[in-house]
Protein backbone atom coordinates (compact mmCIF):
# COMPACT_ATOMS: atom_id res chain seq x y z
CA UNK A 1 0.00 0.00 0.00
CA UNK A 2 1.39 3.38 -0.99
CA UNK A 3 2.45 5.80 1.69
CA UNK A 4 0.39 8.88 2.49
CA UNK A 5 2.48 11.72 3.87
CA UNK A 6 0.91 13.57 6.78
CA UNK A 7 2.59 16.83 7.75
CA UNK A 8 2.60 17.20 11.53
CA UNK A 9 1.93 20.58 13.09
CA UNK A 10 4.42 21.36 15.86
CA UNK A 11 3.66 19.45 19.05
CA UNK A 12 1.06 17.04 17.53
CA UNK A 13 -2.17 18.99 17.59
CA UNK A 14 -5.59 17.39 17.47
CA UNK A 15 -5.77 18.14 13.74
CA UNK A 16 -2.74 15.88 13.18
CA UNK A 17 -4.67 12.95 14.62
CA UNK A 18 -7.57 13.85 12.34
CA UNK A 19 -5.22 13.89 9.34
CA UNK A 20 -3.84 10.46 10.29
CA UNK A 21 -7.39 9.15 10.58
CA UNK A 22 -8.21 10.41 7.06
CA UNK A 23 -4.85 9.19 5.70
CA UNK A 24 -5.67 5.60 6.69
CA UNK A 25 -8.44 5.67 4.09
CA UNK A 26 -5.97 6.58 1.36
CA UNK A 27 -2.97 4.36 2.09
CA UNK A 28 -0.34 3.75 4.72
CA UNK A 29 0.17 6.89 6.85
CA UNK A 30 3.69 8.29 7.22
CA UNK A 31 4.00 11.27 9.53
CA UNK A 32 6.45 14.00 8.55
CA UNK A 33 7.63 15.86 11.62
CA UNK A 34 9.43 19.22 11.52
CA UNK A 35 11.06 19.68 14.90
CA UNK A 36 9.82 17.69 17.86
CA UNK A 37 6.75 15.51 18.11
CA UNK A 38 5.33 12.75 20.29
CA UNK A 39 6.15 9.65 18.23
CA UNK A 40 4.05 7.43 20.52
CA UNK A 41 0.94 9.48 19.84
CA UNK A 42 1.55 9.44 16.06
CA UNK A 43 1.96 5.65 16.12
CA UNK A 44 -1.17 5.25 18.23
CA UNK A 45 -3.20 7.01 15.52
CA UNK A 46 -1.83 4.98 12.65
CA UNK A 47 1.59 6.31 11.58
CA UNK A 48 3.50 3.33 10.18
CA UNK A 49 6.54 5.53 9.63
CA UNK A 50 7.64 8.80 11.18
CA UNK A 51 10.06 10.93 9.20
CA UNK A 52 11.83 13.56 11.28
CA UNK A 53 13.50 16.68 9.89
CA UNK A 54 14.88 19.08 12.45
CA UNK A 55 17.66 21.51 13.17
CA UNK A 56 18.17 25.21 12.52
CA UNK A 57 17.98 24.84 8.75
CA UNK A 58 14.37 23.68 9.08
CA UNK A 59 13.13 25.53 12.14
CA UNK A 60 15.02 28.81 11.82
CA UNK A 61 13.39 29.91 8.58
CA UNK A 62 9.88 30.50 7.32
CA UNK A 63 8.07 27.69 5.42
CA UNK A 64 10.47 27.25 2.47
CA UNK A 65 12.81 24.62 4.02
CA UNK A 66 9.83 22.48 5.02
CA UNK A 67 8.54 22.50 1.45
CA UNK A 68 11.98 21.48 0.17
CA UNK A 69 12.23 18.55 2.60
CA UNK A 70 8.72 17.48 1.65
CA UNK A 71 9.36 17.75 -2.10
CA UNK A 72 12.46 15.56 -1.77
CA UNK A 73 10.45 13.04 0.22
CA UNK A 74 7.67 12.98 -2.38
CA UNK A 75 10.18 12.36 -5.17
CA UNK A 76 11.81 9.55 -3.21
CA UNK A 77 8.76 7.79 -1.75
CA UNK A 78 6.19 8.45 -4.51
CA UNK A 79 3.33 8.66 -1.99
CA UNK A 80 -0.36 8.37 -2.90
CA UNK A 81 -1.13 11.77 -1.37
CA UNK A 82 0.17 14.53 0.90
CA UNK A 83 -2.14 15.79 3.63
CA UNK A 84 -1.60 18.97 5.64
CA UNK A 85 -3.66 20.97 8.12
CA UNK A 86 -5.55 23.92 6.66
CA UNK A 87 -3.71 26.39 8.84
CA UNK A 88 -1.83 29.40 7.50
CA UNK A 89 1.47 27.54 7.55
CA UNK A 90 -0.02 24.26 6.32
CA UNK A 91 -1.45 26.01 3.29
CA UNK A 92 1.79 27.90 2.66
CA UNK A 93 3.86 24.72 2.70
CA UNK A 94 1.33 23.09 0.37
CA UNK A 95 1.54 26.07 -1.99
CA UNK A 96 5.30 25.91 -2.28
CA UNK A 97 5.22 22.14 -2.63
CA UNK A 98 2.69 22.41 -5.48
CA UNK A 99 4.92 24.86 -7.38
CA UNK A 100 8.05 22.75 -6.80
CA UNK A 101 6.34 19.64 -8.15
CA UNK A 102 4.20 21.49 -10.75
CA UNK A 103 1.31 19.78 -9.03
CA UNK A 104 -2.27 20.70 -8.13
CA UNK A 105 -3.45 21.40 -4.61
CA UNK A 106 -6.77 21.59 -2.81
CA UNK A 107 -7.24 23.66 0.33
CA UNK A 108 -9.86 23.72 3.09
CA UNK A 109 -11.11 20.19 2.49
CA UNK A 110 -13.51 18.66 5.01
CA UNK A 111 -13.30 15.12 3.60
CA UNK A 112 -11.10 13.14 1.21
CA UNK A 113 -12.30 10.04 -0.67
CA UNK A 114 -10.09 7.01 -1.28
CA UNK A 115 -9.40 8.23 -4.85
CA UNK A 116 -8.23 11.63 -3.59
CA UNK A 117 -11.42 13.53 -4.44
CA UNK A 118 -11.87 16.22 -1.81
CA UNK A 119 -14.99 17.84 -0.45
CA UNK A 120 -14.45 21.53 0.24
CA UNK A 121 -16.58 24.10 2.01
CA UNK A 122 -16.36 27.34 0.01
CA UNK A 123 -17.74 30.87 0.12
CA UNK A 124 -17.71 31.00 3.87
CA UNK A 125 -19.38 27.63 4.27
CA UNK A 126 -22.39 28.62 2.15
CA UNK A 127 -21.55 26.11 -0.57
CA UNK A 128 -19.85 22.75 -0.99
CA UNK A 129 -17.77 21.49 -3.91
CA UNK A 130 -16.10 18.23 -4.81
CA UNK A 131 -12.74 18.67 -6.51
CA UNK A 132 -9.77 16.66 -7.55
CA UNK A 133 -6.17 17.31 -8.43
CA UNK A 134 -5.70 16.71 -12.16
CA UNK A 135 -1.92 17.08 -12.31
CA UNK A 136 0.31 15.06 -10.01
CA UNK A 137 -0.66 13.53 -6.69
CA UNK A 138 -3.37 14.92 -4.38
CA UNK A 139 -1.90 17.62 -2.13
CA UNK A 140 -4.76 18.44 0.20
CA UNK A 141 -5.06 20.71 3.22
CA UNK A 142 -7.80 19.70 5.65
CA UNK A 143 -9.75 21.86 8.05
CA UNK A 144 -9.49 21.09 11.75
CA UNK A 145 -12.61 19.39 13.21
CA UNK A 146 -13.48 17.69 9.90
CA UNK A 147 -13.45 14.18 11.39
CA UNK A 148 -13.36 12.58 14.82
CA UNK A 149 -9.88 11.13 15.28
CA UNK A 150 -9.77 7.42 16.04
CA UNK A 151 -6.79 5.42 17.21
CA UNK A 152 -5.36 2.54 15.19
CA UNK A 153 -1.96 1.51 16.55
CA UNK A 154 0.81 1.13 13.98
CA UNK A 155 4.57 0.60 13.97
CA UNK A 156 5.63 4.25 14.11
CA UNK A 157 9.16 3.50 12.90
CA UNK A 158 11.21 6.68 13.24
CA UNK A 159 13.51 7.64 10.38
CA UNK A 160 15.74 10.70 10.62
CA UNK A 161 15.90 12.66 7.37
CA UNK A 162 19.01 14.35 6.07
CA UNK A 163 18.11 17.98 5.57
CA UNK A 164 19.55 19.56 2.43
CA UNK A 165 18.08 23.00 1.87
CA UNK A 166 19.38 25.69 -0.47
CA UNK A 167 20.28 29.29 0.31
CA UNK A 168 17.04 30.31 -1.46
CA UNK A 169 15.15 28.48 1.30
CA UNK A 170 16.85 30.59 3.95
CA UNK A 171 15.83 34.08 2.85
CA UNK A 172 13.15 34.59 5.51
CA UNK A 173 14.61 34.15 8.95
CA UNK A 174 12.59 33.55 12.12
CA UNK A 175 14.25 35.73 14.76
CA UNK A 176 11.85 35.20 17.63
CA UNK A 177 8.69 33.26 18.48
CA UNK A 178 6.43 35.01 20.96
CA UNK A 179 3.52 33.26 22.69
CA UNK A 180 0.56 35.46 23.58
CA UNK A 181 -2.28 34.74 25.94
CA UNK A 182 -4.30 31.62 25.47
CA UNK A 183 -3.70 29.91 28.78
CA UNK A 184 -4.76 26.29 28.96
CA UNK A 185 -7.68 26.74 26.57
CA UNK A 186 -7.87 24.63 23.43
CA UNK A 187 -6.81 26.10 20.12
CA UNK A 188 -9.59 28.13 18.51
CA UNK A 189 -9.87 26.21 15.23
CA UNK A 190 -9.56 22.83 16.96
CA UNK A 191 -11.88 23.36 19.91
CA UNK A 192 -15.10 21.38 20.11
CA UNK A 193 -16.71 24.32 21.93
CA UNK A 194 -16.16 28.00 21.05
CA UNK A 195 -17.58 30.88 23.07
CA UNK A 196 -17.32 34.20 21.23
CA UNK A 197 -17.97 37.76 22.27
CA UNK A 198 -18.94 40.69 20.10
CA UNK A 199 -19.56 44.41 20.30
CA UNK A 200 -22.19 43.80 22.98
CA UNK A 201 -19.52 42.64 25.42
CA UNK A 202 -18.61 46.33 25.47
CA UNK A 203 -15.07 46.26 26.90
CA UNK A 204 -11.86 44.27 27.10
CA UNK A 205 -12.45 43.80 30.81
CA UNK A 206 -15.90 42.30 30.21
CA UNK A 207 -14.35 39.59 28.07
CA UNK A 208 -13.65 37.85 31.41
CA UNK A 209 -17.30 36.84 31.24
CA UNK A 210 -16.76 35.21 27.83
CA UNK A 211 -13.61 33.50 29.11
CA UNK A 212 -15.38 32.23 32.21
CA UNK A 213 -18.16 30.58 30.20
CA UNK A 214 -15.61 29.16 27.75
CA UNK A 215 -13.65 27.63 30.64
CA UNK A 216 -16.76 26.12 32.20
CA UNK A 217 -17.62 24.50 28.85
CA UNK A 218 -14.01 23.47 28.17
CA UNK A 219 -13.95 25.66 25.10
CA UNK A 220 -11.89 28.26 23.27
CA UNK A 221 -12.61 31.98 23.23
CA UNK A 222 -13.40 33.78 19.99
CA UNK A 223 -14.28 37.34 19.10
CA UNK A 224 -16.15 39.11 16.33
CA UNK A 225 -14.42 41.63 14.13
CA UNK A 226 -16.27 44.45 15.87
CA UNK A 227 -14.87 43.31 19.21
CA UNK A 228 -11.35 42.95 17.80
CA UNK A 229 -11.46 46.33 16.02
CA UNK A 230 -12.62 47.90 19.29
CA UNK A 231 -9.55 46.45 21.00
CA UNK A 232 -11.51 44.09 23.30
CA UNK A 233 -9.61 40.96 22.24
CA UNK A 234 -6.55 40.10 20.07
CA UNK A 235 -6.92 39.51 16.34
CA UNK A 236 -5.72 35.90 16.38
CA UNK A 237 -8.99 35.02 18.11
CA UNK A 238 -11.16 36.70 15.48
CA UNK A 239 -13.82 34.48 13.93
CA UNK A 240 -15.13 35.38 10.49
CA UNK A 241 -14.24 36.61 7.06
CA UNK A 242 -10.89 38.19 7.92
CA UNK A 243 -10.17 35.85 10.80
CA UNK A 244 -10.48 32.17 11.60
CA UNK A 245 -13.03 29.70 10.34
CA UNK A 246 -14.30 27.41 13.09
CA UNK A 247 -16.56 24.40 12.95
CA UNK A 248 -17.05 23.24 16.54
CA UNK A 249 -19.77 21.02 18.00
CA UNK A 250 -21.06 24.04 19.92
CA UNK A 251 -20.71 27.73 19.08
CA UNK A 252 -21.92 30.28 21.63
CA UNK A 253 -22.32 33.85 20.33
CA UNK A 254 -22.54 36.50 23.03
CA UNK A 255 -23.45 40.05 22.03
CA UNK A 256 -22.74 39.28 18.38
CA UNK A 257 -25.25 40.61 15.86
CA UNK A 258 -24.30 38.03 13.24
CA UNK A 259 -23.19 40.07 10.24
CA UNK A 260 -22.54 37.96 7.16
CA UNK A 261 -18.80 38.41 7.62
CA UNK A 262 -19.06 36.80 11.05
CA UNK A 263 -21.33 34.02 9.85
CA UNK A 264 -18.64 33.26 7.29
CA UNK A 265 -16.42 31.96 10.06
CA UNK A 266 -18.88 29.88 12.09
CA UNK A 267 -21.97 28.83 10.17
CA UNK A 268 -20.81 25.24 9.71
CA UNK A 269 -20.78 24.76 13.51
CA UNK A 270 -22.97 21.85 14.56
CA UNK A 271 -25.00 23.65 17.21
CA UNK A 272 -25.24 27.43 17.52
CA UNK A 273 -26.48 29.25 20.61
CA UNK A 274 -26.84 33.03 20.85
CA UNK A 275 -27.48 35.65 23.49
CA UNK A 276 -28.33 39.13 22.25
CA UNK A 277 -30.48 41.95 23.56
CA UNK A 278 -31.77 42.77 20.06
CA UNK A 279 -34.56 40.32 19.12
CA UNK A 280 -34.03 41.23 15.44
CA UNK A 281 -30.29 40.39 15.45
CA UNK A 282 -29.50 38.22 12.38
CA UNK A 283 -27.59 35.74 14.57
CA UNK A 284 -30.99 34.39 15.71
CA UNK A 285 -31.75 33.35 12.11
CA UNK A 286 -29.16 30.61 12.39
CA UNK A 287 -29.14 29.91 16.11
CA UNK A 288 -30.54 26.58 17.26
CA UNK A 289 -31.27 28.23 20.58
CA UNK A 290 -31.44 31.93 21.21
CA UNK A 291 -31.91 34.01 24.33
CA UNK A 292 -33.11 37.58 23.85
CA UNK A 293 -31.75 39.39 26.85
CA UNK A 294 -28.95 41.26 28.57
CA UNK A 295 -25.83 39.12 28.34
CA UNK A 296 -24.54 40.67 31.59
CA UNK A 297 -27.47 39.00 33.37
CA UNK A 298 -27.90 35.87 31.26
CA UNK A 299 -24.24 34.78 31.12
CA UNK A 300 -23.42 35.00 34.87
CA UNK A 301 -26.62 33.10 35.63
CA UNK A 302 -25.70 30.45 33.06
CA UNK A 303 -22.22 30.18 34.57
CA UNK A 304 -23.68 29.68 38.06
CA UNK A 305 -26.09 27.08 36.75
CA UNK A 306 -23.29 25.11 35.08
CA UNK A 307 -21.28 25.18 38.31
CA UNK A 308 -24.30 23.87 40.23
CA UNK A 309 -24.70 20.99 37.82
CA UNK A 310 -21.03 20.00 37.97
Amino acid at each position, binding site marked *: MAEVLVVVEAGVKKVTLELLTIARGLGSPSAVVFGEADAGKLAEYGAEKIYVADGDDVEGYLVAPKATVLADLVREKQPAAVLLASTQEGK*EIAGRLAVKLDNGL*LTDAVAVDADGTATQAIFAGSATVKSKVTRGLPIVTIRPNSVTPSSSPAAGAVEQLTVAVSEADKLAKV*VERVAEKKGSRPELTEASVVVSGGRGVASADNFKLVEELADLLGGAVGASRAAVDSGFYPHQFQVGQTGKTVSPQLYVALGISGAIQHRAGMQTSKTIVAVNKDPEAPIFELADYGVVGDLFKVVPQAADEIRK*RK
Partner: protein
Amino acid sequence: MNIVVLVKQVPDSGASRALGAGDFTVERASANNVINEMDEYAIEEALKIKEAHGGEVTILTMGPATASEAIRKALSMGPDKAVHVQDDTLHGSCAVTTSKVLAAALGTLNADLVLCGAESTDGRVQVMPHMLAERLGIAALTGARKLTVDGSQLTAERQTDEGYEVVTAATPAIVSVWDTINEPRYPSFKGIMAAKKKPVQTLALADLGVSAGEVGVAGSTSQVLEFAQRPERTAGQKVTDSGDGGAQLVAYLASEKFV
Protein backbone atom coordinates in the same frame (compact mmCIF):
# COMPACT_ATOMS: atom_id res chain seq x y z
CA MET B 1 11.80 51.76 -3.21
CA ASN B 2 9.96 50.20 -6.15
CA ILE B 3 6.83 48.65 -4.67
CA VAL B 4 4.26 46.48 -6.46
CA VAL B 5 0.91 45.74 -4.78
CA LEU B 6 -1.11 42.74 -5.91
CA VAL B 7 -4.81 43.54 -6.18
CA LYS B 8 -7.63 41.13 -6.91
CA GLN B 9 -11.20 41.88 -7.85
CA VAL B 10 -13.58 39.53 -6.03
CA PRO B 11 -17.34 39.01 -5.75
CA ASP B 12 -18.71 40.96 -2.78
CA SER B 13 -18.50 38.66 0.23
CA GLY B 14 -21.55 40.37 1.70
CA ALA B 15 -23.78 39.02 -1.06
CA SER B 16 -24.69 35.56 -2.28
CA ARG B 17 -21.91 33.92 -4.32
CA ALA B 18 -21.90 30.94 -6.66
CA LEU B 19 -19.87 28.93 -9.12
CA GLY B 20 -21.05 29.04 -12.74
CA ALA B 21 -22.95 25.94 -13.90
CA GLY B 22 -20.82 25.30 -16.99
CA ASP B 23 -17.20 25.09 -15.86
CA PHE B 24 -17.63 25.61 -12.09
CA THR B 25 -15.56 28.79 -12.06
CA VAL B 26 -16.45 31.74 -9.83
CA GLU B 27 -19.56 33.50 -11.09
CA ARG B 28 -18.41 37.06 -11.73
CA ALA B 29 -20.76 38.28 -14.46
CA SER B 30 -23.81 38.55 -12.20
CA ALA B 31 -21.92 39.37 -9.00
CA ASN B 32 -21.23 42.73 -7.44
CA ASN B 33 -17.45 42.77 -7.97
CA VAL B 34 -15.30 44.73 -5.55
CA ILE B 35 -11.64 45.16 -4.66
CA ASN B 36 -10.53 42.44 -2.24
CA GLU B 37 -10.77 44.13 1.14
CA MET B 38 -7.41 42.94 2.49
CA ASP B 39 -5.66 44.43 -0.55
CA GLU B 40 -6.55 47.92 0.64
CA TYR B 41 -4.35 47.33 3.67
CA ALA B 42 -1.47 46.31 1.39
CA ILE B 43 -1.96 49.48 -0.66
CA GLU B 44 -2.00 51.60 2.48
CA GLU B 45 1.22 49.98 3.70
CA ALA B 46 2.86 50.59 0.31
CA LEU B 47 1.85 54.25 0.36
CA LYS B 48 3.21 54.68 3.89
CA ILE B 49 6.53 53.14 2.88
CA LYS B 50 6.69 55.38 -0.19
CA GLU B 51 5.93 58.44 1.93
CA ALA B 52 8.73 57.53 4.35
CA HIS B 53 11.37 56.24 1.94
CA GLY B 54 10.42 57.53 -1.51
CA GLY B 55 9.87 55.42 -4.61
CA GLU B 56 6.97 54.32 -6.72
CA VAL B 57 3.87 52.17 -6.14
CA THR B 58 2.49 50.02 -8.96
CA ILE B 59 -0.75 48.00 -8.81
CA LEU B 60 -0.67 44.57 -10.47
CA THR B 61 -3.94 42.80 -11.23
CA MET B 62 -4.83 39.69 -13.18
CA GLY B 63 -8.48 39.54 -14.14
CA PRO B 64 -11.14 40.13 -16.76
CA ALA B 65 -11.94 43.55 -18.25
CA THR B 66 -14.23 44.39 -15.30
CA ALA B 67 -11.21 44.24 -12.97
CA SER B 68 -10.31 47.71 -14.27
CA GLU B 69 -12.86 49.01 -11.73
CA ALA B 70 -10.81 47.52 -8.89
CA ILE B 71 -7.67 49.01 -10.43
CA ARG B 72 -9.21 52.51 -10.52
CA LYS B 73 -10.35 52.11 -6.93
CA ALA B 74 -6.81 51.10 -5.95
CA LEU B 75 -5.25 53.99 -7.88
CA SER B 76 -7.64 56.47 -6.26
CA MET B 77 -5.95 55.75 -2.91
CA GLY B 78 -2.66 57.10 -4.29
CA PRO B 79 -0.50 54.56 -6.19
CA ASP B 80 1.30 55.84 -9.30
CA LYS B 81 0.33 53.37 -12.01
CA ALA B 82 -1.04 49.92 -12.73
CA VAL B 83 -0.49 46.83 -14.80
CA HIS B 84 -3.52 44.76 -15.79
CA VAL B 85 -2.90 41.22 -17.01
CA GLN B 86 -5.99 40.56 -19.06
CA ASP B 87 -6.51 37.67 -21.42
CA ASP B 88 -9.63 35.62 -22.09
CA THR B 89 -7.59 32.42 -21.95
CA LEU B 90 -6.89 33.05 -18.24
CA HIS B 91 -10.52 32.42 -17.25
CA GLY B 92 -10.70 29.63 -14.67
CA SER B 93 -6.97 29.42 -13.90
CA CYS B 94 -6.10 27.61 -10.65
CA ALA B 95 -3.74 29.03 -8.02
CA VAL B 96 -0.72 27.20 -9.43
CA THR B 97 -1.21 28.56 -12.97
CA THR B 98 -2.16 32.01 -11.66
CA SER B 99 1.14 32.14 -9.80
CA LYS B 100 2.95 31.32 -13.04
CA VAL B 101 1.32 34.28 -14.81
CA LEU B 102 1.77 36.72 -11.91
CA ALA B 103 5.42 35.68 -11.51
CA ALA B 104 5.99 36.39 -15.20
CA ALA B 105 4.33 39.81 -14.83
CA LEU B 106 6.40 40.59 -11.72
CA GLY B 107 9.46 39.64 -13.74
CA THR B 108 8.83 42.68 -15.95
CA LEU B 109 8.42 45.09 -13.01
CA ASN B 110 11.70 44.81 -11.11
CA ALA B 111 10.10 45.31 -7.68
CA ASP B 112 12.10 45.69 -4.48
CA LEU B 113 9.01 44.90 -2.48
CA VAL B 114 5.79 43.12 -3.44
CA LEU B 115 2.87 43.63 -1.06
CA CYS B 116 -0.44 41.80 -0.99
CA GLY B 117 -3.35 40.97 1.30
CA ALA B 118 -3.00 37.84 3.45
CA GLU B 119 -5.92 36.24 1.63
CA SER B 120 -8.69 36.99 -0.84
CA THR B 121 -12.28 36.80 0.35
CA ASP B 122 -13.33 34.52 -2.52
CA GLY B 123 -10.80 31.68 -2.43
CA ARG B 124 -9.19 32.31 1.01
CA VAL B 125 -6.42 29.99 -0.14
CA GLN B 126 -3.49 32.09 1.24
CA VAL B 127 -0.90 30.44 -0.99
CA MET B 128 -0.08 33.12 -3.57
CA PRO B 129 2.79 34.94 -1.81
CA HIS B 130 4.71 31.73 -1.13
CA MET B 131 4.01 30.41 -4.63
CA LEU B 132 5.38 33.63 -6.12
CA ALA B 133 8.39 33.63 -3.79
CA GLU B 134 9.10 30.05 -4.82
CA ARG B 135 8.97 30.94 -8.52
CA LEU B 136 10.94 34.18 -8.21
CA GLY B 137 13.50 32.96 -5.69
CA ILE B 138 12.78 35.83 -3.30
CA ALA B 139 11.85 35.94 0.38
CA ALA B 140 8.25 35.72 1.58
CA LEU B 141 7.20 37.26 4.89
CA THR B 142 3.55 36.33 5.22
CA GLY B 143 0.70 37.20 7.56
CA ALA B 144 2.30 40.44 8.78
CA ARG B 145 0.54 42.58 11.35
CA LYS B 146 3.49 44.97 11.48
CA LEU B 147 6.20 45.79 8.94
CA THR B 148 9.38 47.84 9.41
CA VAL B 149 11.60 48.90 6.52
CA ASP B 150 15.20 49.83 7.27
CA GLY B 151 17.10 50.31 4.02
CA SER B 152 16.92 46.96 2.28
CA GLN B 153 16.12 45.14 5.54
CA LEU B 154 12.53 44.13 6.29
CA THR B 155 11.25 43.05 9.70
CA ALA B 156 7.71 41.78 10.15
CA GLU B 157 5.57 40.47 12.96
CA ARG B 158 3.91 37.38 11.54
CA GLN B 159 0.69 36.52 13.32
CA THR B 160 0.41 32.89 14.40
CA ASP B 161 -2.15 30.87 16.35
CA GLU B 162 0.09 31.04 19.40
CA GLY B 163 1.01 34.73 19.15
CA TYR B 164 3.50 36.06 16.66
CA GLU B 165 6.89 35.45 15.09
CA VAL B 166 9.45 38.14 14.34
CA VAL B 167 10.72 37.42 10.83
CA THR B 168 13.33 39.22 8.75
CA ALA B 169 14.45 39.29 5.14
CA ALA B 170 16.32 41.50 2.72
CA THR B 171 14.69 42.93 -0.39
CA PRO B 172 13.60 41.86 -2.92
CA ALA B 173 10.78 40.21 -1.00
CA ILE B 174 7.05 39.65 -0.94
CA VAL B 175 5.07 40.54 2.17
CA SER B 176 1.42 39.71 2.84
CA VAL B 177 -0.51 41.69 5.43
CA TRP B 178 -3.50 41.19 7.70
CA ASP B 179 -6.07 43.90 8.33
CA THR B 180 -4.49 44.57 11.74
CA ILE B 181 -1.49 46.30 10.14
CA ASN B 182 -2.98 49.75 9.47
CA GLU B 183 -6.12 51.72 8.73
CA PRO B 184 -6.51 52.25 4.97
CA ARG B 185 -7.15 55.81 3.83
CA TYR B 186 -10.34 56.71 2.02
CA PRO B 187 -9.78 57.94 -1.53
CA SER B 188 -10.16 61.74 -1.67
CA PHE B 189 -12.15 63.41 -4.44
CA LYS B 190 -8.84 64.63 -5.85
CA GLY B 191 -7.50 61.09 -5.69
CA ILE B 192 -10.52 59.71 -7.54
CA MET B 193 -10.15 62.31 -10.29
CA ALA B 194 -6.38 61.77 -10.54
CA ALA B 195 -6.85 57.97 -10.79
CA LYS B 196 -8.69 58.41 -14.08
CA LYS B 197 -5.54 59.80 -15.68
CA LYS B 198 -2.97 57.41 -14.18
CA PRO B 199 -1.30 55.02 -16.63
CA VAL B 200 -2.67 51.46 -16.78
CA GLN B 201 -0.66 49.08 -18.92
CA THR B 202 -2.53 46.05 -20.24
CA LEU B 203 -0.53 42.88 -20.75
CA ALA B 204 -1.78 39.85 -22.66
CA LEU B 205 -0.54 36.33 -22.07
CA ALA B 206 1.69 36.49 -25.15
CA ASP B 207 3.47 39.53 -23.66
CA LEU B 208 4.52 37.38 -20.71
CA GLY B 209 5.86 34.40 -22.62
CA VAL B 210 3.26 32.04 -21.16
CA SER B 211 1.33 29.86 -23.59
CA ALA B 212 -2.45 29.57 -23.61
CA GLY B 213 -2.30 25.82 -22.99
CA GLU B 214 -0.66 26.41 -19.59
CA VAL B 215 -3.54 28.47 -18.18
CA GLY B 216 -7.32 28.60 -17.90
CA VAL B 217 -9.60 25.72 -17.05
CA ALA B 218 -7.74 23.34 -19.38
CA GLY B 219 -4.29 24.25 -18.06
CA SER B 220 -5.27 24.11 -14.40
CA THR B 221 -3.89 21.56 -11.98
CA SER B 222 -7.19 20.83 -10.26
CA GLN B 223 -10.80 20.59 -11.29
CA VAL B 224 -14.14 21.14 -9.60
CA LEU B 225 -16.47 18.19 -10.19
CA GLU B 226 -19.61 19.22 -8.33
CA PHE B 227 -21.03 22.36 -6.76
CA ALA B 228 -23.98 22.70 -4.40
CA GLN B 229 -25.26 25.53 -2.23
CA ARG B 230 -25.54 24.43 1.37
CA PRO B 231 -29.06 24.48 2.73
CA GLU B 232 -29.57 27.66 4.77
CA ARG B 233 -29.54 27.18 8.51
CA THR B 234 -32.92 27.69 10.04
CA ALA B 235 -33.78 29.49 13.24
CA GLY B 236 -34.44 27.23 16.20
CA GLN B 237 -36.03 28.09 19.49
CA LYS B 238 -35.87 31.69 20.75
CA VAL B 239 -36.77 32.68 24.30
CA THR B 240 -36.90 36.11 25.89
CA ASP B 241 -35.13 36.43 29.23
CA SER B 242 -37.52 37.15 32.04
CA GLY B 243 -35.14 36.41 34.86
CA ASP B 244 -34.26 32.79 34.15
CA GLY B 245 -32.73 33.11 30.64
CA GLY B 246 -29.34 31.85 31.82
CA ALA B 247 -30.87 28.81 33.49
CA GLN B 248 -32.98 28.07 30.41
CA LEU B 249 -29.88 28.31 28.24
CA VAL B 250 -28.07 25.78 30.41
CA ALA B 251 -31.10 23.49 30.39
CA TYR B 252 -30.89 23.51 26.57
CA LEU B 253 -27.14 22.87 26.65
CA ALA B 254 -27.73 19.99 29.07
CA SER B 255 -30.41 18.51 26.80
CA GLU B 256 -27.82 18.54 23.99
CA LYS B 257 -25.23 16.97 26.37
CA PHE B 258 -22.86 19.95 26.34
CA VAL B 259 -23.14 20.33 30.11
